[in-house]
């Protein structure tokens, strides 16, 4: 069991800055993120894009901002559980919370700060009415173990890099790979497109375009998919294509994910908080900061996330240290004492006596 003062869900800019603000109050933090590295969207989606509205930075790349935030909070020795998604939360008798990830890692803290940004990115599911019935019974949105496709008939749908790359990879594993795409053109790396063309010519990949998977056939397990194919003069034909696996690869879309089932008040796909004080949710001890929250006048900006994190930490301190007196201090005056033994402070003026 990992224990900490503030458990932060989401290691994006807001989550990382929370570590620093909590550290000033001598509170330790641990962060959980489904992504394999800290930085959230800034490092995963647009690390090379410039941001222009971070105070004191006329321009900074999103990836560089992450690096600087990590540098700033390093002295407070945050813990990280990366590549795991916060799945469940349980309130304990002592008022603390236990948060368990999809991989079973347990974390306990008296305060939970949800800084989940847009949420977790989940596979975009095709609009097939009975697709849910076949999930993990032949329909997979993510390929975890390619071995399960050995000597099987696999249908992949999609037109991006994932669809191309997995078609190439599985052509050596599966008995038959069929790639279905709505358009004749694929949007992927040229190398991948060329390779698929080569494998198609060699008879190792069957390509069906322009076409869409419209339905799924089976009892308890997938037996076939229903394909609607258009020819050059737009005459459509619909037929069943026998297969053991159907893998729709239509990219990812941001969703709140399991957090939506934690009993928190949700409004407009975001977590409603009390913005008059400290961004606490309807569950005392659970806060939501940054893009994941909503309140009247909310702006989804990194700099607003920083502000929300700062205020939240003040209330977190009171929860963790009830009755303990404390006043906010300026780092310029008091310096910064890291948990790693480092101390940062302004150089002291030298007083020299005149003889």
């Amino acid at each position, binding site marked *: 069991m990992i224990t900490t003062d503030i458990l932060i869900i989401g290691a994006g800019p807001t989550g990382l800055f929370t570590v620093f603000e909590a550290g000033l109050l001598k509170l330790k933090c641990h962060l959980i993120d489904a992504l394999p590295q800290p930085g959230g969207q800034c490092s995963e*989606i*647009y690390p090379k894009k410039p941001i222009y509205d971070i105070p004191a930075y006329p321009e900074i790349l999103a990836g560089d901002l992450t690096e600087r935030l990590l540098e700033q909070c390093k002295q407070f020795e945050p813990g990280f559980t990366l590549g795991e998604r916060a799945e469940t939360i349980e309130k304990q008798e002592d008022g603390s919370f236990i948060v368990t990830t999809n991989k079973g890692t347990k974390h306990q803290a008296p305060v939970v700060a949800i800084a989940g940004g*847009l949420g977790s990115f989940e596979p*975009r599911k*095709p*609009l097939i009415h009975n697709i849910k019935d076949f999930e993990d019974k032949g329909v997979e949105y993510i390929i975890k173990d390619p071995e399960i496709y050995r000597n099987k008939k696999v249908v992949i749908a*999609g*037109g*991006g890099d994932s669809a191309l790359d997995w078609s190439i990879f599985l052509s050596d594993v599966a008995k038959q790979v069929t790639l279905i*795409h*709505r*358009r004749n*053109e*694929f*949007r992927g790396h040229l190398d991948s497109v060329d390779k698929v063309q080569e494998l198609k010519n060699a008879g190792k990949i069957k390509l069906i375009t322009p076409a869409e998977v419209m339905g799924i056939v089976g009892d308890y397990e997938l037996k076939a998919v229903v394909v609607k194919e258009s020819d050059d003069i737009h005459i459509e034909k619909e037929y069943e294509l026998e297969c053991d696996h159907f893998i729709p690869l*239509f*990219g990812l*879309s*941001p969703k709140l994910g399991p957090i939506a089932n934690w009993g928190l008040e949700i409004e*407009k*796909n*975001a977590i409603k908080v009390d913005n008059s004080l400290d961004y606490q949710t309807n569950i005392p001890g659970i806060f939501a900061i940054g893009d994941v929250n909503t309140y009247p006048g909310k702006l*989804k900006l990194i700099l607003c996330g920083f502000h929300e994190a700062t205020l939240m930490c003040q209330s977190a301190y009171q929860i963790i240290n009830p009755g303990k007196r404390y006043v906010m201090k300026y780092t310029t005056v008091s310096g910064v004492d890291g948990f790693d033994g480092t101390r940062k402070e302004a150089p002291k003026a030298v007083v020299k006596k005149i003889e």
Partner: protein
Amino acid sequence: MEQDINITITDRQGTIHKILAPTDMAMNLMEVVRSYELAEEGTIGVCGGMAMCASCQCYVTSTTELPEMQDDEEAMLSEAFHVKENSRLGCQIQMTPEMEGLEVELAPES
């Protein structure tokens, strides 16, 4: 305002809105839709306008000459649902004087 342009947006319920869109605020079509609250908050512009989510997909029904589609938009539309020949992402259409008379329908939420 003389820098405003007239555009027509049909919302997801089929209601037609004739609105004025400013051209001096660096706004895109998705932001105009949000500013007029023509789609429920949280169902449009989810990614903030980075061509990452297709929540602002719309069908262009006028003959307005639009800016050319960039790779990000094309890639997103190749994976999105409810896509038609005239699909565009609202976040990639900037409000400029050339957009005067633009008519679009919002694609269904997905």
